[in-house]
């Protein structure tokens, strides 16, 4: 209990990922959903860094750098899409964003 092992970090990461997943699945505001996706990416990063520290190999941290870069790209494009959708439909509710549905 007193010694922090990678298992502790894995549990924290899993819990954080689940919280993000609940946010993606339950909330209807698309901006909140994007933030929940960022939470899930952070959970993955915690796992990678914890195990990189455990096995004393820096490759895990290199992967985290790439994950952060992809998250930045995803946020930029996703928020651009949100702005374009909001301009067309005047809403941020994903239930009303069904223009691609036949």
């Amino acid at each position: 209990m007193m010694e922090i092992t990678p298992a502790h970090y894995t549990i924290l990461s899993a819990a954080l990922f689940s919280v993000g997943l609940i946010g993606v699945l339950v909330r209807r505001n698309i901006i909140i959903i994007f933030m929940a996706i960022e939470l899930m990416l952070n959970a993955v990063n915690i796992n990678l860094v914890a195990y990189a520290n455990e096995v004393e190999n820096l490759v895990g941290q290199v992967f985290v750098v790439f994950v952060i870069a992809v998250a930045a790209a995803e946020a930029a494009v996703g928020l651009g899409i949100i702005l374009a959708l909001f301009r067309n439909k005047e809403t941020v509710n994903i239930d009303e964003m069904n223009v691609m549905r036949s």
Partner: protein
Amino acid sequence: MAEALAFYTLSVLILGLAVAVITTPNTVHSVVFLVLNFLCVAVLYVFLQAEFLAVIQVLVYAGGIVVLYLFVVMLVNLGRSPEEHQDPRRLGLIGLGLSGAVLLELAGIIAYSYTREQSPPVTAAQASPVQGNIEELGWLLYTDYLIPFEVASVLLLVAMVGAIVLARRES
């Protein structure tokens, strides 16, 4: 013992802030909780000897991505009708108090720097080398992972162009 205490405190903070992010009805509050969550994760990275990632986390996530979110939240703000605006005078008082606190802090720093005794200047030989693993991480990124690194930069360029095209107002 101390490490366990720090870990459990940070875990509670991270999970609690994550729950706050997805449950708060006000989107602006949600973004603020997200910033605090990212800062707590950065502290966790410091515990895991990933100092460079902690800095990147603060700069890119808490500094860049979240500001982007805040911009979009402000641009698409629907949830608040004009009648719900709070009394501007009350918020002004809070702002006044915060500015006063910052002013006091700055005054304290200046007073402290004048009153303490003069320490000898640090020469280059005395200055300790940078702690952490930034050098090794940079070595890995520019040797073994050079191609993924360049691909990531191209991806960021494409994302930048795409975001500009998507957000541009069609005239």
